[in-house]
């Protein structure tokens, strides 16, 4: 199969800014994008620079943007990309500084992972057993799922929130945080939930599911974030604006079947909402402030029943 590639190049020693270069190369039918760029490097352009190691989607080195989506090059088939897009566009992961070609500075990502204190913190009062700690079969399903993460940063760099809020610790770090929250051997659950639901934690998640969608390993960070949120509510650790926002959302729908966008900011931010006055005035002048008094939807009783049923089901 003859395939064409458009690859973003940047050599810090000679280039002022990044540019694209086209390549055309003959490949076996089942070639992966990694095999393709290795062939390009060996045959056409020895300067083409990227990271790679295991070739089997377990080391997380070869994450890059392939046709505008963060993916592992070793797990992406050239033929599939060509069938969908005609060509293969390859760029470095977004939001991280490019060092050279497809190699980005991963340090900011690692610092986020470190923030969640990713190591076991057993209860300090417990005397460790002589043998292994017991873990009932089946209770570690979430821990296993979170453990599949290979820190490729696909989710982190394609996340819609890290786009506008660089302080957000991001889905990969939160999933790793959850791995320890869910671990029955850990003794710092409360401390962890506080940490993870702090500012720049779970409540900054916009619930867009991009992380879960781009994860090459089936980790489902959004589900891990949801579970931490749930535990935060159960334990009443809900002082963060984000938690209050979620609560206000729920209360509004429960009460009227509608989302009352006019009272939402007040309930979320309390008196802090005063700081938003200039924005409110500008919105008012553009006719964008919603009317605060809303009639419930006609079948609001039905909606309340849904709430009752779901609460019972828990």
């Amino acid at each position, binding site marked *: 199969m003859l395939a064409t590639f458009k690859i973003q190049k940047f*050599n810090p*020693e000679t280039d002022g800014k990044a540019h694209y270069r086209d390549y055309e190369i003959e490949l076996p039918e089942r070639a992966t994008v990694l095999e393709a760029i290795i062939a390009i490097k060996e045959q056409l352009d020895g300067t083409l620079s990227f990271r790679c*190691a295991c070739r089997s989607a377990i*080391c997380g080195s070869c994450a890059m943007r392939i046709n505008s989506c963060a993916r592992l090059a070793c797990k992406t088939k050239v033929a599939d990309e060509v069938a969908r897009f005609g060509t293969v566009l390859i760029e470095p992961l977004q939001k991280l500084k490019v060092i050279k070609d497809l190699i980005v500075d991963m340090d900011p990502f690692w610092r986020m992972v470190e923030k969640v204190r990713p190591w076991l913190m057993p209860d300090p009062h417990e005397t*460790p057993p002589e*043998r292994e700690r017991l873990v009932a079969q089946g209770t570690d399903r979430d821990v296993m799922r979170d453990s599949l993460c290979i820190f490729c940063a696909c989710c982190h760099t394609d996340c819609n929130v890290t786009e506008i809020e660089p302080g957000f610790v991001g889905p990969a770090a939160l999933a790793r945080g959850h791995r320890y929250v869910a671990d029955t051997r850990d003794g710092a659950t409360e401390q962890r939930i506080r940490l993870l639901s702090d500012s720049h934690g779970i409540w900054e998640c916009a619930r867009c599911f991009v992380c879960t969608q781009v994860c090459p390993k089936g980790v489902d960070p959004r589900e891990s974030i949801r579970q931490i949120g749930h535990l935060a509510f159960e334990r009443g650790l809900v002082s963060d604006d984000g938690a209050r926002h979620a609560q206000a959302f729920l209360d509004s729908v429960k009460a009227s079947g509608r989302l009352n966008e006019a009272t939402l900011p007040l309930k979320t931010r309390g008196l802090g909402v005063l700081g938003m006055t200039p924005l409110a005035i500008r919105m008012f002048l553009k006719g964008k402030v919603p009317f605060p008094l809303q009639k419930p939807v006609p079948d609001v009783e039905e909606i309340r029943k849904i709430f009752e049923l779901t609460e019972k089901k828990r």
Partner: protein
Amino acid sequence: MLEYDVVVVGAGLAGMRAAIEAAKASKVTVLSKVHPVRSHSGAAQGGINAALGPDDSTESHAFDTVKGSDYLGDQDAIEILCREAPDDIVELEHMGTVFSRDANGRIAQRPFGGAGFPRTCFAADITGLVILHALYEQMLKTGIKVFEEWVVTSLVVDDNKIRGIIAIDMRSGRLEAIKAKAVVLATGGCGPVFHNSSNALISTGDGMSLAYRAGAPLMDMEFMQFHPTTLKANGVLITEGARGEGGHLLNALGERFMARYAPQKMELASRDVVSRAEQTEIEEGRGIDGCILVDLRHLGARKIKERLLQIRELAIDIAGVDPIEEPIPVRPGAHYSMGGLKTDVSGATLVPGLFAAGECACVSVHGANRLGGNSLLETIVFGRRSGKAAGEFAASVAAPAFPESAIRDADARIEGILKRDDGEKGYALRRELQETTHENLGIYRTAGRIQRCVEKVTEIKERYASVIVQDKGRIFNTDLVSAIETGYLIDLAQAMAAGALAREESRGAHSRRDFPSRDDDKWLKHTLAYWTPNGPRLDYLDVTITKWPPAERSY
């Protein structure tokens, strides 16, 4: 200049375990050419052995290992490995490693090849990944400094003592020196000496080669393990756990052909036995397109999805086969180097202050054939022991003088490659090397073929002297690093071929068609290879036998 008591080169399981231990008493740092979690230990799927169950014994684990090694393993080292295994597993568990559990909530254990008892602890089929993460997280917790993406290019040895290392910091492209009282090499395997190995592209035997050139001998390099189940397209591994969970091997006629080769153990005979059986089936025309089949269908979708999740994905992605519905075509592939730097049971090489652990070392616990699940164990047990010994060594010596000329020499070597315009690219040389080892140094060997390999490798080495790269820059020059790595592979191939040619017997993974049986009278001994400008000089060393006199080996 940076200065440490102990410098650990490599951040796979062996390196990180060594660093954690050494840090208890000394100033330690770790260098790795990739971020620690990218190390190839993370690709280990099947599990790690320890006699944990009340009905199992460390003695029985040791015997299985001795027998698996075809009696070439040093029995004192094997006894240490097996005796210390249970405590090390418990320690990993206490650190936070996730393990699959049995009905009582204890660490579950699956049967593995060559073992008389189900003693392989695992986490589904991501065992290496979860241990790698647990150790990395312990490193974060303890605050051990890691120089990530620093590629070590020289060991500085002066007056037969280790003085430190020199590395390229990929990000700046600069050469940096670190002065050290002790150095622990934990740079992993060298699968890419062969075509389509199961190893990572980064497993290029750097530490083995660097120490070999610096005067430390390699041991038993002719023993390369061919794993029975690797994917045809690129050598990626299908874990032995697939057979441990009950998978069958079938030939083109649909027969479970292992009945002819290992009637008792069948698919769970030692790897050398199974790989030879497969190769024979393929050569005698009962293969399918150069492969045989591993059939998991009877295990059922649930078990496959729960315990063999990763290999199912790999089979689908790489071979286009879903093992729930179809058998997977596989063939034997280069997988693990039993050989490595000769060390004692504390990881000390023959150069004072230089230690080695993990796959780059040869203690020797695997002898002529490693049992599945024993290598991860080795990284932990001997990683820990070498970290401790390196710390103690560092405490006993004064800070060494670091010869300044070493940096200039290293820089001149690199400049030499960068400036050269006339010569051959390393990639082509590497491919030729892999072709000749694949053809002539594979599962079955003969004097004629090995001789051809020796000559070809010598020729490649001569051509390598004028290797060129296209990338002339300094920052993140992966073109340059690859060319340097090819040089390591060539040196190791020479040692392998020389050892293989000399060893006129068949033992474990080394099968000579012209000398088909084991010859304990002449060859119950380790091969040592010393670097010389004219190729390896061989020497021999007795095998340590404590309890188990060599006996016939059948499965």
